[in-house]
């Protein structure tokens, strides 16, 4: 019976839904995390009587036909890219991106990854890096004797050094933007990679048209909303149960058939 397999696709889809929701909830406190949403689409339809088929020689056509669908599939897990709220940290090396844009990160493999998590640190050579120690591109070195670091909204990194009256600019942070941010490939550790769907990165200065601004001393909280996630979880669980009921009912019908001629 097709109903058995159809209900199974429904259960599979809801299972994926729960997995996506649980990942959102688990990452509620991850800096720069963007929530995901599982999106469903109906599967192929089998036309038992094809709509539009000729029903007589006079040219009359079957208006609606009989089409039976075969269930549901997960179309994609879509990342919702709304801005997360600002969390004050007072850490001089935390930058939050307000608006579009990603910081560029040099991966150990030599490739460039992108991140929204602006909780930066310095390594033993004074270079700006992510919590994993991957260097931020373009590379910026904070001198060892710097007493203060200031990062402007447009990305200039200035340090105050003893003996110098004016702050000294040591680098310029840049942001990468994409035509289709949703198409970026998640690598884990808050990092993303460019993909065929995202389009090539366009590098810009923070504050330019279409590029976000930077805010020092803040990090971007995740945009996960607990109430939405929990209600989505309830819906997913009930939908899962309903599909399992269909399996039971279809099984009952098969049993009735099997018991014929008892």
């Amino acid at each position, binding site marked *: 019976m097709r109903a*058995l397999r159809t209900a199974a696709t429904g259960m599979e889809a*809801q299972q994926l839904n729960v997995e996506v929701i649980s990942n959102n909830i688990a990452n509620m406190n991850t800096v720069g995390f963007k929530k995901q949403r599982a999106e469903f689409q109906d599967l192929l339809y089998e036309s*038992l*009587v094809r709509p539009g088929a000729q029903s007589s020689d006079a040219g009359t056509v079957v208006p*609606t036909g009989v089409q039976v669908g075969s269930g549901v599939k997960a179309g994609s897990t879509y990342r919702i890219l709304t801005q997360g709220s600002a969390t004050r940290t007072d850490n001089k090396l935390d930058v939050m991106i307000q608006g579009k844009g990603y910081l560029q990160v040099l991966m150990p493999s030599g490739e460039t990854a992108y991140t929204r998590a602006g909780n930066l640190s310095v390594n033993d050579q004074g270079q700006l890096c992510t919590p994993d120690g991957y260097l931020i591109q373009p590379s910026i070195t904070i001198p060892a004797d710097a007493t203060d670091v200031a990062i402007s909204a447009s990305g200039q990194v200035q340090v105050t050094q003893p003996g110098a009256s004016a702050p000294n600019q040591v680098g310029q942070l840049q942001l990468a933007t994409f035509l289709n941010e949703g198409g970026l490939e998640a690598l884990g550790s808050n990092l993303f990679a460019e993909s065929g769907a995202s389009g090539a990165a366009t590098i810009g200065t923070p504050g330019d048209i*279409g590029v976000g601004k930077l805010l020092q001393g803040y990090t971007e909280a995740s945009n996960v909303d607990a109430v939405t996630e929990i209600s989505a979880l309830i819906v997913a669980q009930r939908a899962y149960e309903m599909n399992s009921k269909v399996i039971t009912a279809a099984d009952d*019908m098969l049993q009735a058939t099997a*018991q014929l001629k008892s």
Partner: protein
Amino acid sequence: MDNPIYVALSREMILRRQMDIVANNIANADTTAFKVENLIVKANPVQAPAPDGGPTTINYALDVALGRDFGQGALTQTGGELDVAIEGDGFFKVQTANGERYTRDGRFSLDSQGRLVTKQGQPVQGDSGDITVDVKKGGLNIARDGTISQGNERVGKLVAVSFSDNAALSKDGDGLYANKSNLSAGPAQSAILHQGMTEGSNVNPILQITNMIEVSRAYERMSKMIDQTAELDRQAINTLGKVTS
């Protein structure tokens, strides 16, 4: 003599198909812009071989069509800039490899060239073909009539089309409908587009579960009827076939 068995069998075949459709409805209870489906069944009168004044016609059950309820699904706020829901009658036009298709699923995104596309990457059609936007120009605003603007600049217009008879559209899967009966498509007059919303499925879970119970019980009744008819035959053979001396 075996007519009851055949009639019950015709009903059972339809009940199985109905169960498939109920299962598909429930599986898609959470699918964006899914429209609930129902099997339309009619009585199919057939002249029965009854020479000596028996019932002249018997009615088989026959499925004739699949009815799709195009009633509005609930609109849900998503906040997505490229999520568009249609309120009222109407469909978005999508260009696919197999030709033009129609959908009410308005969860769009941009592809790597900045074209507005569906989740499968098929370009959505505006009033002048593909819609291309430049994200650098700032946020997109989609008006209730489908006009897309960025700031003060108009960059395109989403069109909603409607058909004289939605029931004649055939379903392709992936939320796409095909116009295989050559219906005339015109601009949807009553359609209102809502940005940042998606249309939920219009499946009513309670109704579907009761349908499911009904189908499953009816199937059991039919099986019992087949069983009893066969039992009747068996008894007739046993009783009448007895040779009395």
